[in-house]
């Protein structure tokens, strides 16, 4: 979940509530769903929140929400914009993988150190969330006074006076001085040797041409990787050029809106920019107010309370929305709710109802048990599993619960069986456990690379880890085993398996067989144990478990090599078979 650092002094300034103590602010923010996590070294408040209200990724957005909560502001606010003076021309050479651009000009900013820090943080947090680590959208903010755009205007490509161009550049094409560097570099050099370049190189690695933004002087930004040093923003900057590139126009337009709202909150003036694609021209930022229609009934039924229309409108306005109640039928009232352009989380009218609930206070609602009658019950599989487990426990087995993920050596090699390949994949029918495993693409560690094909290896590992504990150790587990099976829709056959081990100084085949007999007898199943060969067991002391005529597992005395491999100094008798054989 995102964490945002907020300077409490700035928060007091921006909300206009100098009288609020830090603790009061923390309480008020908890009401918005921002949870206080601690303080930074500089004394800023660290606040964690769910990633829906991305407009709260900086102090300006948090302050705006608080002013609505306090009742200082009501309804939708849209900043006024000045007409465009600048154009972003989109050249045909722009890489197909990253075709979209947007932007805005910001005039008369006054950035002190805190405000500049906040702007940089907002940029980074937007990159991390909506921008999907800059892959979907990346923001570049430039000192406007350092840009020269007149030449383009002279060529008459645009009605506006000044222009910059978004285009593609050869990796070894034009050179520029990136941020935090002293020398001119080509884009390829940046990816190769600049620290920031190395971090984001993967984003453009597959591109034939790299994205680049030019003004009259030349290349000044290499999105989504790094800006040029020439246009670096400082506390002296008065006018800014904000540009965003990405893989989706809507996404970068919303990111742009959130930046514009933050700077507007600090008294700056937003100025439109024209984005000139070969086939169309857009005027940005896009401050369109969207509308969602929701009925009064839906609000009442979802919250489970009665509300007057005035109250609903009041709650919506306190959420920064506007609403008009309207009769839409027999006694039915619906609201056309206006949603401001920074609210990226509102997709459906239901999201507006959530705002009403938050403004009302969900914790003020009285819980009630739903008056709905249904009949409960257990699944047959889980009933069978519990019944079998009860029999095992009655026979004195300690019931265990192991991970379904395991490593290949544990599942195969240490049990003296090999992982079958291709045509061997059916070997499982002869040698329990020898099945093709479902493997994990990017495992957490080498201990958990696949799903176990049988459960005995897990029990052997428990014995191995408990040699310092008292014997006898009679352990059993009923759990999942899985194997690749093309006949299954998911490609994996999942089954429950019953495994038991008897570790004691005189453990014998007879002990295991006696218990297996007891289990099958309890389920009125017919048991036969014809001799078989299984590498995990001693030759001549292993048998197939055949229940009601079907070969479903194996029983025997564990092979000494397997025992020594697991650091065991006493014999182990064991069995494993499919649970569904008892059904």
């Amino acid at each position, binding site marked *: 979940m995102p964490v945002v650092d907020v300077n409490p002094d700035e928060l007091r300034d921006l909300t206009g509530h100098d009288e609020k103590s830090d603790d009061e602010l923390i309480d008020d923010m908890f009401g918005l769903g921002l949870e206080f996590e601690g303080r930074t070294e500089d004394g800023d408040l660290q606040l964690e929140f769910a990633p829906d209200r991305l407009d709260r990724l900086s102090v300006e957005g948090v302050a705006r929400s608080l002013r609505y909560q306090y009742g200082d502001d009501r309804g939708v606010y849209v900043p006024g914009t000045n007409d465009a003076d600048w154009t972003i021309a989109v050249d045909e050479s722009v890489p197909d993988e990253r075709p979209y651009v947007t932007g805005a000009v910001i005039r008369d900013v006054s950035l002190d150190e805190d405000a500049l820090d906040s702007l940089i943080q907002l940029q980074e947090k937007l990159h991390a969330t909506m921008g999907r680590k800059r892959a979907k959208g990346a923001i570049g903010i430039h000192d406007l006074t350092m840009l020269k755009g007149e030449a383009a205007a002279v060529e008459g490509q645009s009605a506006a006076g000044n222009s910059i161009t978004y285009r593609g550049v050869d990796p070894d094409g034009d050179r520029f001085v990136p941020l935090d560097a002293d020398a001119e570099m080509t884009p390829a050099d940046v990816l190769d040797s600049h620290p920031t370049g190395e971090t984001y190189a993967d984003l453009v690695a597959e591109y034939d041409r790299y994205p680049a933004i030019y003004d009259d002087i030349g290349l000044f930004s290499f999105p989504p990787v790094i800006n040029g040093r020439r246009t670096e923003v400082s506390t002296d900057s008065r006018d800014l050029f904000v540009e965003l590139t990405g893989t989706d126009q809507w996404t970068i337009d919303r990111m742009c809106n959130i930046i514009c709202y933050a700077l507007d909150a600090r008294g700056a003036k937003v100025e439109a920019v024209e984005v000139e694609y070969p086939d169309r021209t857009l005027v940005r930022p896009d401050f369109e107010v969207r509308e969602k229609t929701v009925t009064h009934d839906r609000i009442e039924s979802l919250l489970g309370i009665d509300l007057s229309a005035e109250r609903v409108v009041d709650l919506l306005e306190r959420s920064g929305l506007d609403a008009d109640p309207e009769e839409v039928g027999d006694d039915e009232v619906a609201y056309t709710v206006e949603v401001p352009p920074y609210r990226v989380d509102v997709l459906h009218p239901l999201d507006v109802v959530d705002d009403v609930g938050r403004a009302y206070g969900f914790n003020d609602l009285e819980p009630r048990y739903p008056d709905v009658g249904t009949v409960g019950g257990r699944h047959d599989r889980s009933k069978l599993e519990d019944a079998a487990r009860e029999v095992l426990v009655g026979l004195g087995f300690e019931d265990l619960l192991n991970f379904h993920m395991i490593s290949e050596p544990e599942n195969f090699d240490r049990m003296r069986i090999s992982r079958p390949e291709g045509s061997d994949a059916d070997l499982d029918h002869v040698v329990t456990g020898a099945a093709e495993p479902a493997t994990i693409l990017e495992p957490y560690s080498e201990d958990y690379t696949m799903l176990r094909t049988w459960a005995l290896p897990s029990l052997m590992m428990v014995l191995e880890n408990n040699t310092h504990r008292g014997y006898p150790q009679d352990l059993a587990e009923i759990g999942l085993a899985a194997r690749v099976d093309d006949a299954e829709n*998911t490609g994996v056959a999942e089954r429950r398996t019953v495994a038991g081990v008897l570790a004691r100084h005189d453990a014998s085949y007879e002990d295991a067989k006696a218990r297996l007999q007891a289990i099958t007898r309890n389920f009125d199943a017919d048991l036969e144990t014809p001799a078989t060969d299984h590498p995990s067991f001693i030759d001549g002391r292993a048998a197939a478990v055949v229940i009601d005529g079907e070969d479903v597992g194996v029983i025997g005395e564990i092979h000494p090599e397997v025992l020594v491999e697991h650091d065991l100094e006493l014999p182990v008798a064991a069995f494993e078979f499919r649970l569904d054989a008892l059904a």
Partner: protein
Amino acid sequence: MKLPESQAAVLRAASADESRSIERLADETGHKPETVTGTVFELEDEGLVAVKESIEETVTLTDEAREYLDSDLPEVDLYETALDAGADADPVEMGRVIGQSGLEGPAVDIALSNYARKGYGVIESGEITADPDADPESDAEAGALADLDAGEAVADEAVLDQLDRRELIERDESTVRTVTLTDAGVTALMEGVETAETVGQLTPEMLTSGEWRDVEFAEYNVEADAQRVDGGKTHILRQTANRVKDTLVGMGFEEMEGPHVDAEFWINDCLFMPQDHPARTHWDQFALETPREIDELPEELVERVRDAHRNGVGEDGEGYHSPWTEEVAKGVDLRGHTTSLSMRYLSGNEVGDLEPPQRFFSVEKVYRNDTLDPTHLLEFFQIEGWVMAEDLSVRDLMGTFEEFYAQFGITDIEFKPHYNPYTEPSFELFGTHPTTGEMVEIGNSGMFREEVLEPLGVDCDVMAWGLALERLLMLMYGFEDIRDVHGTLADLELLRETEVLH
């Protein structure tokens, strides 16, 4: 007559003419007095002996009294020193006499308090006089101590009381039993008494032959610890899961079942999670290498889900501005939550189309690529539940949770508004820990979004929630490291010794 060995021995040792004490019978038979006492009563029941009981006082000397046997009583010492100092003529300064007497510590007080009482002299204003006529040689208390030590009785009650007050003796009353043979006993002896044998183990033969009537069972040390037996026990996490299952079944929920390895479609796409959602990367969920993708997805449902992602649901609904491909949806993962089962059931693909009202649950494993630490496992159990009905409200959701968690002692549930891509409104649930009283997060919940329900063909409300079973286990048992319990690093001793909860 055949009697057990101890009864036969006691009978032979008893006399018809003389009352014999238990101690004496014990001496003669070689049995412990306790054994003889029990045997005597058995014989009395059979009419072979008569038992007489009397209360007897025993007087024993304390350690302090034994010291005085070797030396003199402190007041006698004091008197003799006083005489030597000439206190029979004139009063002498007390400090000097005490110094010369060699009395120290508590002995000084003992000497002074008994000196005057016995008339050895007067102690006044720090001076001591000695009565020349006193006769410590015939001190009654010293004499009584000597007599008691010699085993003779002391008849003078006043002296005994005095010694008792001085804590020089301890007086105890005990029941003394004496035994005489009855006529029947004498007859039995004359007719001959045989000794029955002592046996260690009751055998089937003894029972069938009736021999058990004539044998005596060797005594065991019944207080000694026996060899340890551990027995079997259902795993405590299973027990906890079953408690949850019982509770939910009791509340009208039916259990779901489904694949652990499943298509992303059921795990994520049906849940309206955009395909470029950060939680869908391999860092959060385990994608499989083999197999790579599911064979088939329900075609119409795929189209409806795709449409919800692209265009949203309803007249003014909006979709995500994220890519959506069936290829991604078909990829198979280890499920990161059991909400995939809820999607399968709600879609009608598992148990047919569902008409409201319905309640379903599962307590099954899920898999997350999280950091392995004392409170996080790569595999854990998720409690999943949902209710489908017309016009459900947030209040119904709250009421259901209060009812459920109350069964586990967790009260004062708080609902923190939250965000999930698949529910709106959404709540994180917090509750009060049953023993420590602190606020702990206990689950995540909400009302399924229209974008989830409409593609599934559900046109009423569904509220749902999820909770880690391990969190409930840790709350109930107070475990600190979940790895001691779940997985191959489990500690058998811990599993064997964990207290049974009920």
